[in-house]
């Protein structure tokens, strides 16, 4: 089990920075079946019935990309750079390449990434789906993503990340910059299913203008080598809102250091961070950092963790107020399942194992806004399966 202080370092030289090109496919149905199954597991809808657009990248190649709604742009970041000269005003504006060696590598050896944008006033009928996929053994996939919800638009994105079934090691570095303009709404749901020895280093910053709303859901139930991320959101305009939820399971060998920071820079802004973690043999560090810069803001952080069998579960909630007149609170609870809850369910006829798995399922069953019904069902199934593995 990994402790917080010896979170292992990653040697970039251990990873390959080049991979062969994969051919573009015109139809999602032409994707190789082994890949397709992995994509399905992270929420990609191959039939695309309920999707406004699709972006799929395998290793360094964009293998499929399209939009099905006017006013919604979906393309690779390199295409977007060609098409929109102004994109340079949006890239690397929030994250410096010098932040760490991962951001540096993403700058030096970039491998595409997506560009998704809703034009002013446009509301996506269904989510845009994206998938970043690693198939090459030992590959370091370095992507740069940009999502822009222009004024008064509404953009839903579901992004899944996965690896090919045979893959053992790999590294994923993802730089993401999100912009939510005045009165716009961005709902971003990310589902991860990396391999057992894959290391993942997302670096994400979001900027939200007046009256804008950002909702972010992050779900990682499957084993992963190590995952470290701490996305930062700046609520810059009056009345902007951020809601972040994460559902994490760390099985044996997995190390998850996950949290979010929300900086409330304008009056009337609201932020909420909710996280649920289960350490079942692995380690979770669940962070949350709320920073109140002006009066009249409201922010709440809720972090609940369970240890099943063994594991490390550390909750680190932080609240910082720079002025009086802020309303900030947090609630953190870490522990094992309450015996009263188990016995309550046993009094209704469940045996002890049945009671525990029912409680675990409930614990992970956070209502996730903006999740299509089919994906919700899939997620419920994934929770059930994960929960079976844990017992």
């Amino acid at each position: 089990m990994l402790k917080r202080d010896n979170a292992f370092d990653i040697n970039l030289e251990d990873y390959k920075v080049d991979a062969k090109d994969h051919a573009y496919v015109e139809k999602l149905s032409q994707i190789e079946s082994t890949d397709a199954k992995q994509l399905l597991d992270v929420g990609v809808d191959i039939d695309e019935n309920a999707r406004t657009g699709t972006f799929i990248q395998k290793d360094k190649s964009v293998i499929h990309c399209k939009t099905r709604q006017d006013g919604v742009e979906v393309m690779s970041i390199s295409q977007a750079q060609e098409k929109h000269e102004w994109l340079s005003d949006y890239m690397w504006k929030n994250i410096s390449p010098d932040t760490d060696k991962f951001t540096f590598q993403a700058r030096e050896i970039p491998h595409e990434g997506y560009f998704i944008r809703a034009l002013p006033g446009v509301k996506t009928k269904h989510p845009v789906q994206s998938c970043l996929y690693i198939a090459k053994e030992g590959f370091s996939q370095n992507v740069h993503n940009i999502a822009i919800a222009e004024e008064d638009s509404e953009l839903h994105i579901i992004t899944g990340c996965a690896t090919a079934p045979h893959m053992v090691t790999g590294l994923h570095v993802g730089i993401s910059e999100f912009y939510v303009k005045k009165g716009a709404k961005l709902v971003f749901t990310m589902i991860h299913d990396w391999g057992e020895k894959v290391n993942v280093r997302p670096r994400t910053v979001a900027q939200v203008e007046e009256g804008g709303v950002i909702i972010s859901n992050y779900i990682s139930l499957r084993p992963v080598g190590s995952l470290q991320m701490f996305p930062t959101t700046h609520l810059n305009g009056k009345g902007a809102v951020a809601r972040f939820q994460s559902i994490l399971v760390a099985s044996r060998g997995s190390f998850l250091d996950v949290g979010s920071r929300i900086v409330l820079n304008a009056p009337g802004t609201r932020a909420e961070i909710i996280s649920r973690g289960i350490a079942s043999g692995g380690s979770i560090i669940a962070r949350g950092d709320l920073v109140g810069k002006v009066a009249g803001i409201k922010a709440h952080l809720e972090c609940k963790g369970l240890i099943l069998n063994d594991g490390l579960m550390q909750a680190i909630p932080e609240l910082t107020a720079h002025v009086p007149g802020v309303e900030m609170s947090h609630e953190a609870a870490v522990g094992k399942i309450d015996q009263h809850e188990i016995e309550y369910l046993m009094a209704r006829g469940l045996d002890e194992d049945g009671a525990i798995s029912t409680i675990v399922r409930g614990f992970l069953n956070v209502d996730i806004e903006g999740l299509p019904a089919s994906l919700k069902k899939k997620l419920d199934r994934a929770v059930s399966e994960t929960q079976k593995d844990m017992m």
Partner: protein
Amino acid sequence: MLQIEELKVVVGGKTILNNVNMEIPKGETHILFGPNGSGKTSLMMTIMGFSGYNVTRGKIIFKGEDITDMPINERALLGIGVSFQRPPTISGLKTREIVEICDVDRSTNVEELAKQLNFTDLLYRDVNHNFSGGEIKRSELLQLMAQQPDLVLLDEPESGVDLESIVLIGDAINSLLNRGVRCPQERPHKEIISGRTKSALVITHTGHILDYITADRGQVLYNGILCCSRNAREILKWIREYGYEECVRCSNEIMPLI
């Protein structure tokens, strides 16, 4: 149906129940009176088999079987059901789901039952999360109606409930025990109650619930000692008149004999 013999229960090193003997025959409802702290809830938890209630002497027999060491869930499946006074919240578990868990043979129409209990709006809330006193009772009764136990243990069914709800709760208990007089009478009432097999132990310290349900017998628990067993209304009259003072005397008389 239920027989308790010379039961001694220790909680956290302290004797909570002392030499309790009790019998609830098939089809009978008994009321368990007693002031706060006398051990009523502990007796119920012991009958159900909850951890922390250590039986150091005596035994509990249900349907002829010694259940003293049986796991909780096996007791439930054998036909014992409990309505808790302060049940825990289970986050993420909808009340509807726990009702379905209770309904082992899948014979319950949950929607219909919920309507009867004026509970429809709460079915999709996390069980017990921010429930009011009355909502907890209705949730517990809904679960019991789905479970259909042969022995029903109810802990203070009237506490924390407003007057309107208490009528509803009384009706629900009566229908759970096949004692209802309200239901549409297509069959002769005599016939409905002749097949009555459900037994119950209803815990109350105020006795108010007796205005809404009928009982065959009353017992008084005082300081861990069962000191009185007679007609429930008679006991209630005494308690309303004199409180539990009279019980002090009786239990003091019994104490040296244990």
